């Protein structure tokens, strides 16, 4: 346990110097302001205000940014002499992964708070009460851990600091831009409709939006839970597999 704490603190103190936590705050704030100011009057979101509509995807995107950081860290730990030395220490092989995930959670909470704070200024409200609010946070964090595990497995596999986070840039953009997070599905060309509707970012943001609004359907909640659990299981398995010590 003390090894986990020491490694997590190491990541945090390194972070204070490479400013990743500052980016964790700035990314959701910047994206929210950008989307709201640029698109707020262009996209018809019915009765819902655009800040209320768009915040969930801003948060999901911040989680995807966190995954890119994680890929970068995992690659660094795999390649560097530091990471090699960790594997010769009398600590369980899973501890460095656990420390990266703990950092990922801390970063996710900070981004979540920053996103909600800025959106509140523009009228975003958690209308669903405490229960829905808690569920909102749980889903965001589960999604964050899932994508971070995937990114960690990728970073550990690729082992190149430059290419692993670059590789995630494209899927991240595609998933966010071609989702119902920024605009309703009707506004996309017909042939893209099925992808836009059913891909995980759309499913998760719709559930989050419904939770914030206070009326969620069982189907939507179940779809999001299924996505989160499936991604957690798949990426968790891959990430653990990559931590095998000896080859």
């Amino acid at each position, binding site marked *: 346990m003390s090894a986990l704490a*020491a490694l997590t603190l*190491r990541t945090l*103190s*390194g972070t204070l110097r490479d400013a990743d936590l500052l980016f964790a705050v700035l990314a959701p704030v910047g994206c929210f302001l950008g989307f709201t100011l640029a698109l707020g009057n262009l996209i018809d979101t019915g009765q819902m205000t655009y800040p209320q509509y768009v915040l969930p995807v801003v948060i999901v995107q911040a989680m995807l940014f966190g995954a890119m950081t994680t890929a970068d860290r995992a690659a660094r730990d795999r390649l560097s*002499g530091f990471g090699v*030395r960790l594997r*010769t*220490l009398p600590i369980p092989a899973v501890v460095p992964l656990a420390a990266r995930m703990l950092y990922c959670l801390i970063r996710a909470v900070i981004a979540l708070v920053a996103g909600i704070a800025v959106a509140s200024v523009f009228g975003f409200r958690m209308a669903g009460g405490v229960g829905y609010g808690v569920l909102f946070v749980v889903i965001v964090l589960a999604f964050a851990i899932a994508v971070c595990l995937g990114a960690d497995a990728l970073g550990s596999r690729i082992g190149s600091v430059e290419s692993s986070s670059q590789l995630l840039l494209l899927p991240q953009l595609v998933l966010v831009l071609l989702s119902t997070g920024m605009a309703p599905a009707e506004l996309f060309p017909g042939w893209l409709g099925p992808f836009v509707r059913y891909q995980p970012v759309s499913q998760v943001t719709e559930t989050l939006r419904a939770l914030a609004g206070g009326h969620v359907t069982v189907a939507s909640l179940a779809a999001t839970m299924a996505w989160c659990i499936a991604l957690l299981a798949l990426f968790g398995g891959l990430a653990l597999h990559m931590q095998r*010590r000896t*080859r």
Partner: protein
Amino acid sequence: MPDVAIECRDLAKSFGKSSSALQGISFTVARASVCALLGHNGAGKTTTINILSTLLRPTAGSATVAGFDVERQSAEVRSSIGVTGQNAALDEFLTGRENLMLFGQLRGLRHRHARRRADELIERFDMGHAADRRVSTYSGGMRRRIDIAVALVVPPRVLFLDEPTTGLDPRSRRDVWDLVSALRHQDVTVLLTTQYLEEADVLSDSIIVLNSGRVVASGTADDLKCRVGVSYCQITPADPMNLPEIATALADFAGLGVGCDTLIDHTAAAVSVPAPDGVVTFGEVFRRLDGLGIELADISLRKPSLDEAFLSLTSPPVTV
């Protein structure tokens, strides 16, 4: 802990089907001694260290470190060892002191204890002036020094030093040598790798020479020197065209079964022959070449190079 700190039996490792890094090596290292693995790049030194430090699994054979089997008791092995690699394994964002404390805590020291231990090592390694600067600002020698200190935070029973002086300037190299020599008195067994015969000679009680994944010789530095020959006579003709003629004239110095071609060093444009009798051999060589009327640019006696050590150690023994 047993009297044998490291034991390898027929250790082999191949990567994929075609390349085999180790082809069955066996050796033992006595407790509280310093042993050097000597060899060129690709000889299998780092692979050996990686297997012994549980980073790689052997393809065949077995090994024990501090009495523990590297495969079946890898957790116990990791509790007994310290490792420093070819590249300093430090967190660049942290200061030297923070690195020492971090690794102390990773090895189970409590915060206060880790701090005290860091202070001790900083003093012992004479790093007070740099301890609170970030590692990314350190010179190569400083980095290596703190890297070795990190491996000693919790005193290991066996310390692996993979090319501890590669890339260091002569002064820093001397510093590292002093650090390693001092460990001998602290019941730490050291296995180091090096490409330099001189380094192996200065630091180690025993030397294992690796070539292409095999042990080609082992013993004390004196044993090996006796086998290699005390010195070499190197002849540089004024005209490189004369090299084959010189090699032929001096073939009997090399011993039977060694081709004349192997005496010629084309990059140095010189011929080298073993000079077991020192100046007597030198005189004989000079007389013969003088008799042939070959004009010489230089002729000298020198210590054997690692290449010659390999050549000598890998060629079959001559029976008359």
